[in-house]
């Protein structure tokens, strides 16, 4: 019995120590962010989903307090901010489900959006680039996927800044 415990500990201990010794990831810094309109590319996604993701992102990033100022795309007053970063999102895949199907069958009818979120510095170099998936699995209308997605992106942005 004791031999088994020792064997398990000998496997786990180095992993735990390695995890503890990893230095915490340095946070990025910027006073302002500009949120770009969601790019659809070749993916056929209805316009209301793109605009809803954009609006919810503006709302959530503002509420997170990670930046002193949150600008929308096209806002001329953002041009003068020296440490402005830009959040760019591009849709990679979209599957429109059905609210009725979801609520009746539970395992079917999910709405899913895959996107790539990129944060660019003022000089154009990439600070962060990650794939994120938003879903509506059980209750709520299909547009609810935009809220899930915005929540996940904001969490990521907040963890980085």
């Amino acid at each position, binding site marked *: 019995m004791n031999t088994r415990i020792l064997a398990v500990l000998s496997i786990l201990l180095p992993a735990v120590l390695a995890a503890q010794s990893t230095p915490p990831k340095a946070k990025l810094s910027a006073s302002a962010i500009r949120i770009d*309109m969601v790019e659809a590319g070749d993916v056929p996604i209805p316009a*209301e989903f793109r*605009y*809803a993701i*954009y*609006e919810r992102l503006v709302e959530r990033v503002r509420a997170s307090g990670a930046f002193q100022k949150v600008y929308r*795309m*096209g806002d001329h007053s953002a041009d003068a901010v020296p440490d402005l970063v830009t959040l760019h999102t591009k849709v990679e895949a979209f599957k429109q489900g059905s*609210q009725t199907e979801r609520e009746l069958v539970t395992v079917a009818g999910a709405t899913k959006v895959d996107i790539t979120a990129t944060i660019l510095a003022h000089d154009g170099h990439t600070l962060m680039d990650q794939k994120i998936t938003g879903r509506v699995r059980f209750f709520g*209308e299909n547009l609810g996927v935009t809220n899930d997605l915005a929540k996940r992106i904001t969490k990521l942005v907040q963890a980085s800044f």
Partner: protein
Amino acid sequence: MKLGAMILAALAAAAGACAQTESDGAIPKVRVVIGLQDVKRDTSGTLAVHNGILEFRSAKASGQVPVPAIDDIFIGAETTQSGGKTGRVVKTAAIAAPFESGKALTILMRTKVDILTVAYHDPDGAVHGAIFALPKGQAEPMRAQLIQAGAHATDTSKP
């Protein structure tokens, strides 16, 4: 004869109720999904175009978009649940109903709506998107009204 007149009157009343558009072109029972400044999400009210302004008005708040600031208008559709917040509470409570009988409510309470997305810019040039849920069949006339008032919109008839 009297019965015939009564049936006609009843039909006329039903037709009046079905015609969602008010006499001044305003559309009642419109819900703001998101994106209209000064109006909270899921507020229900009336949407109208007058004097070069797209105006949403509810009992508690109102929001306006100047028609010349509109860059594009999109129409979509969504199946949603009727009954508003009360409907949501009833449906949540029905989960506890035996033999999953509460799921019948899902079928009974579903309703189709038109989704009208109005892309516009503010005086600083910042892009906004106001999304409205309108009674079925009302988005196209509203889009036509906005285009007639001078709003920009991509021609959807082109392939």
